[in-house]
């Protein structure tokens, strides 16, 4: 049972149908120059803490928000995060509080999205939900790690070697792709 849910969680992140999670990860990854690997790792950890908490809370039914509203909010979290990355610091102050605060809050929303999926997969099943929950969450984290870490390491390598590369070369491409995807998802 653990293995099955590990696989479900893993596949759910890598599934192109769950492109909203991929898009959010991309924007998250783009928010800081990969030279600052540690800070980026903390940022991704913050997202993980946020979504793990709300995944558990809503799966255990401590937290209940209509799934339609969550699915509507998820692309909006991508849009706002991309805008935070892209807008000049005159409009959006570039401080850690805003960045980390938004990431934890958006993590909470994404976790409730994961929980919708997990709940549907456990429909009409008897027995414990702790093992599926653990398996699913670890599957999600593994997939996230496999996606994110090579990109960060390659980025780090490039940006440390080329001192003159502007932060924008890292921040803009991913954020713009995320922005476009979020608009597509909102209008779609």
């Amino acid at each position, binding site marked *: 049972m653990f293995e099955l849910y590990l696989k479900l969680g893993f596949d759910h992140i890598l599934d192109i149908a769950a492109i909203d999670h991929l898009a959010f990860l991309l924007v998250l990854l783009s928010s800081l120059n990969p030279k600052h690997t540690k800070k980026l790792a903390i940022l991704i950890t913050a997202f993980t803490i946020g979504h793990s908490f709300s995944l558990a809370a809503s799966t255990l039914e401590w937290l209940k928000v209509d*799934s339609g509203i969550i699915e509507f909010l998820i692309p909006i979290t991508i849009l706002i995060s991309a805008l935070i990355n892209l807008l000049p610091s005159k409009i959006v102050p570039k401080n850690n509080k805003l960045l980390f605060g938004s990431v934890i809050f958006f993590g909470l929303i994404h976790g409730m999205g994961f929980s919708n999926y997990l709940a549907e997969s456990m429909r009409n099943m008897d027995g414990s939900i702790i093992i599926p929950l653990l398996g699913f969450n670890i599957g999600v984290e593994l997939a996230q790690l496999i996606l994110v870490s090579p990109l960060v390491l390659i980025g780090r390598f490039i940006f440390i070697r080329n001192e003159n590369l502007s932060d924008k070369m890292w921040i803009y491409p991913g954020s713009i792709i995320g922005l476009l995807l979020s608009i597509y998802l909102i209008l779609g």
Partner: protein
Amino acid sequence: MSVIFANILFSLFLGGNVHEYFFSHTDIIEKENSFEISTNIFIDDLDNMFKKKGYQNLKLGTEHEAETADQLINDYLQKNLRLIVNEEQVSWDWIGKEVSEDLMSFWIYLEVIKKGETNSFTIDNKTLTDAIDDQKNIVNVVLMDNTKRYLLFDKSTRPKVIK
């Protein structure tokens, strides 16, 4: 956007009778003389699949359900939920079906009469993968020798050998 709003409205007014993901769940429990199978499938997915095959008016799960519905579902399941026991694909008796409490899915009950010891057991569940790309079928198998397996089938998985 319109789909999302429709979903929100729909779930507000109808108490959340929309499902976004495609799962079926099947339990297969081995008993002394039989295998008891119960499978839970979304009614609208089943209905859409049959519509694609040209059956327009089955009205599954309603009072006006077509009389042929059970037979059609049974034939469809025999082709897609395949149990191979001792190298031979088994057929089952249709015990019955009922609508789940939330009115969204069927519980379908089937029974296979065993012909002897279970020396090998292979299973495949392609239910609805012909109509829905993202369909995932979860199968929980419990055999007499205490073999317990949770299996996941989708469009691309192959039959799984349990024993």
